[in-house]
């Protein structure tokens, strides 16, 4: 479904991704784990068009999306839930969800999908009219995910959904990620919480200072001594 081949991405003169290649197949949950500053968020931003790769190709469905503008990438069915949620804090929950469906025209279907988001996240329905800046961190994460789903993505990019959340909320969010996946959305998940990410993923890539260093099935990586030491707290 998505095939990234040997991409190099720079911030000015600093190279953030060095020849990264990875693949996501339809229906999978693929996770990308690694330390702070390894380049995980950079990769997602490149996939969604916020950053442009200097070289390399990104193949998605039947075409190339490397270097395309974010709005045309959203149109092809890729939604990105950015790190730190980035909800529109000055707008209501409902307005945020409406913006998620910005490129869609069919108001009837948009309504239906909004109901679906409220089923996934009942808490959001309770707070429909509330200004989203006043939501808790967990609720904002739900809103950011709901907003992305409103675009009807085929591929959902999630950047650190567990960041700064209480353990119970993290568990809740991960259950919902699995549910979204079961409903037919492919997921590429970036996480620092490697344990949690590997527990729901099919496959995983480990990224270090801009390079993919290990990849394999999630269960393989979970049992690998090296990974345990570096990312899983060494138990």
């Amino acid at each position: 479904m998505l095939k990234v081949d040997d991409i190099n991405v720079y911030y000015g003169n600093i190279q953030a991704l060095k020849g990264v290649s990875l693949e996501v197949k339809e229906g999978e949950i693929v996770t990308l784990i690694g330390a702070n500053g390894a380049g995980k968020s950079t990769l997602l931003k490149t996939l969604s068009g916020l950053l442009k790769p200097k070289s390399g190709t990104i193949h998605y469905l039947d075409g190339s999306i490397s270097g395309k503008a974010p709005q045309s990438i959203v149109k092809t069915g890729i939604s990105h839930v950015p790190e730190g949620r980035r909800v529109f804090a000055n707008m209501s929950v409902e307005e945020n969800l409406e913006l998620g469906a910005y490129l869609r025209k069919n108001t009837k279907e948009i309504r239906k999908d909004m109901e679906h988001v409220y089923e996934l996240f009942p808490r959001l329905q309770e707070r429909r009219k509330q200004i989203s800046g006043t939501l808790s961190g967990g609720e904002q994460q739900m809103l950011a995910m709901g907003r992305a789903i409103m675009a009807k993505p085929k591929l959902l990019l999630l950047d650190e959904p567990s960041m700064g959340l209480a353990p119970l909320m993290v568990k809740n969010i991960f259950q919902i990620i699995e549910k979204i996946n079961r409903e037919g959305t492919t997921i590429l998940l970036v996480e620092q919480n490697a344990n949690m990410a590997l527990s729901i993923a099919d496959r995983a890539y480990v990224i270090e200072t801009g390079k993919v260093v290990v990849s394999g099935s999630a269960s393989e990586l979970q049992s690998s001594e090296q990974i345990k030491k570096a990312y899983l707290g060494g138990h």
Partner: protein
Amino acid sequence: MEWLQQIINGISLGSIYALIALGYTMVYGIIKLINFAHGDVFMVGAFVGFYAITGFGLGFFPALILSMVICAIFGVLIERIAYKPLRNATRIAALITAIGMSLLIEYGVIYVRGAQPEAYPNVLPNTTINVFGAQISSQSLFILGISVALMIILQFIVHKTKIGKAMRAVSHDMDAARLMGINVDNTISATFAIGSGLAGAAGVIFGVYYTKIEPLMGVIPGLKAFVAAVLGGIGIIPGAMVGGLLLGVIESIVSAAGFSLWRDAAAFVILILILIFRPSGIFGKNTREKV
């Protein structure tokens, strides 16, 4: 009842400031640029209205709408030519460009048609209405009515339409807006179009009310509208409306109190006081940097 009259005059003047201030504040809200050429768009609007009325014999409303449309296009052109290439430049570079743009428009108009002022034709009936002993011209009520109507339309656009929601999203978080599929460049252009259209309307209204227009007429009202925008809280739309009206009323009161020579100074004294005591303006919140 002199006071009531002065306050009504102040509100009429203030509604013109408010219309111009809205353009300042909308543009600032979306790209953090003080568009110093905005006062000159107001001037161009006044001249478009003037030529539409005297040259083509249009009435007030057709001239007003024509002026708004031409100024909207003009505003988008300014943005595309002067500001868009500097989107990623430092803010000071864009600011200096805005000042250059302002001078270019002012002296461009002088180059094309000369610096002589024009007398605005009288297109609105002017009778005096007696309200509780105050003499109020029907024109000032009319102007107030049109300004309020335009502000209501603006509020509707910003809060209820798709482009309005996109504008608010872009002004809050440009990258997050991109991820929604919003075309940021088009949204910024739309903001310039709406702000400049309002300035064009203000130009025609100003011409009808004060009857004299000239190519440098945008400088002082432009600066005062900027003060009004800061007073209300720059980037906040209701702030520009309230700031404009408040500034107009304060100016009228200063005049009425016998200090009419100090009228212009009053606006800038307010700017200084606001910057010292409440830099975020009446409606602004002190933003805390999140770590």
